[in-house]
C-alpha cells in the first residue's frame, strides 16, 4: 500500500538532489542560449552555405532523441579518447540539444519583426549592431517569452534523462531510494512532486515576466 511516511522520508534527499537538476538545467539554458544565438544568426544568414549549416544543426539535434545524444557523449567520447566526467558530458549534451530548440524559437521571434523597423533605424543613422541590440533583440525576447518559459519547463523535464548516464539528479536519487527502501512507488511519486514544484515555480515566474513585459 501507499505509505505517506516513506514519501516524506524520501523528500529531503530529493530536494537536495534537485540542486543537480537545477544546475544542469541552468547550464543548459545559459550555454544553450549562447550557442542558440550563433545557430540562429547562422540560419538567418544571407550566405546559403552558412544557413544550411545552421539548418543541419537544428535538424540533427531536434531529430535525434536527447537520450541518444546523451549516450553518444557518454560512450562515444571516451571511445575516441576524450575523457570527461559524466556531469560535464551530460551538461554538454543537454546544452547542445537545448540550443537547437532555442535557436528555432529565437528565429521565430526575429522573423516576426516587421522589416520596415530596420529600414527606419537605418534612416535614423543607427548602426547595424545598434539596430539589432536596441530594436530587434528586445522585441524578439518579448514576443518569445511564452515559448522560452515553455522550453525551460521542457528542459527541466528533459534533464531527468541524465540519470541514465549516472548523474545524481532527482530521478537518479529516486532510483537509489527505491532500491534501498523497496518502495519504488513512494520514491518516484515524491520525485514527481519535486519536479512539479520546480516547474510550477518556473511557469509562475514566466507569467509574471510576461505581464511585466506586456506593460513595457
Amino acid at each position, binding site marked *: *500500500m*501507499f505509505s505517506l511516511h516513506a514519501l516524506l522520508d524520501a523528500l529531503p534527499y530529493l530536494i537536495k538532489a534537485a540542486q543537480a537538476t537545477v544546475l544542469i538545467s541552468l547550464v543548459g539554458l545559459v550555454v544553450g542560449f549562447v550557442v542558440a544565438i550563433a545557430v540562429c544568426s547562422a540560419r538567418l544568414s544571407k550566405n546559403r552555405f552558412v544557413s544550411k549549416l545552421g539548418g543541419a544543426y537544428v*535538424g*540533427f539535434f*531536434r*531529430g*535525434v*532523441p*536527447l*537520450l*541518444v545524444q546523451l*549516450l*553518444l557523449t557518454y*560512450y*562515444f567520447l571516451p*571511445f*575516441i*579518447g576524450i575523457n570527461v566526467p559524466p556531469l560535464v558530458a551530460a551538461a554538454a549534451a543537454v546544452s547542445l540539444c537545448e540550443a537547437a530548440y532555442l535557436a528555432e524559437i529565437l528565429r521565430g521571434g526575429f522573423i516576426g519583426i516587421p522589416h520596415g523597423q530596420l529600414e527606419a533605424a537605418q534612416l535614423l543613422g543607427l548602426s547595424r549592431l545598434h539596430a539589432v541590440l536596441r530594436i530587434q533583440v528586445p522585441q524578439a525576447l518579448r514576443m518569445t517569452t511564452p515559448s522560452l518559459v515553455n522550453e525551460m*519547463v521542457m528542459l*527541466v*523535464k*528533459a*534533464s*531527468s*534523462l541524465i*540519470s*541514465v548516464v549516472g548523474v545524481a539528479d532527482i*530521478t537518479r536519487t*529516486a*532510483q537509489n531510494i*527505491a532500491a534501498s527502501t523497496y*518502495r*519504488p*512507488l*513512494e520514491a*518516484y*511519486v515524491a*520525485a*514527481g512532486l519535486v*519536479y*512539479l514544484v520546480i*516547474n*510550477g515555480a518556473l511557469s509562475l515566474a514566466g507569467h509574471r515576466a510576461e505581464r511585466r513585459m506586456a506593460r513595457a
Partner: protein
Amino acid sequence: MAIQFDPSVLTDSLPALAEGFATTIAVWIGGVMIGMVIGFAIALLQIFCGTWVRRFLRVYIEIFRGTPFLVQLFVLYYGGPSLGLSLEPLTAGIVGLGLYGSAYFAEAFRSGFTSVPRGHIEAAECLGFTRLQVIMRVQLPQMLVIIVPALTNLIIVLSKETAVLSVVTVPELTFVLTGIGSERFAFVETLLALCVCYLALVELASRAGQWVEVRVGRFLTR
C-alpha cells in the same frame, strides 16, 4: 586512435535491428492512439462538464505536463506493482506513452475547439443545431484542420520519447542497438545507426504531416 567502422556489426544483427525498429513503431503508434483518444475525451469533458470535473482534469494535465516522462514511466512500471498493477515492459511503455501524450493532445484539442469563431457556433444554434450537432458538424471539422500542425509536432515529439522506454527494458530500437553496442564493444556503428534511424523516422513523420497539412489546408475558411 583511429575510429573504425565495421558494418558487419550491423549486418550481423539485421533481424534483431528490424525487430527493434518494428517495436519502436508499434509503441509509437499505440501511444499516439491512446493519447489521442484520452486527450480528445478530456477536451470534450472540459467543454461539457462543470467546474469540479474541469478542475480535476486541469490537475491531471498539469501533473502529466509538469513531470518528466521518465519519472512517470518509473511510477507506472516500478511503482505499479505496489498497487497491484503489474505490467509487462511493452504494455507499460505503450500505456505510459499514451498517458503522457494524452495531456498534450488534450491541450491541442482544447485550443482547437476554442479557435473556432464564436459566430459559427451562434449561427448553428440559430439554425436549430443541438449542442452535439454543433460540436460534430461545426466545431470538429474546422478544428481538426486548424490543429494539424500542432498534432504533427506532438506525434514527432512522441516518436522521440519512445527512446526513453529503453530504460525500462522495452525491446525497442535504442535498447536493441545499445545492447549490441555493449556486447561487441562497437559504439561507433550502433550509435550512428541509431541517429540515422531516428532522423529518418522524424523526417518521414514531418513530411507526412506537411502532406496532410496541404491536403486539408483547402478546407480552411479564409
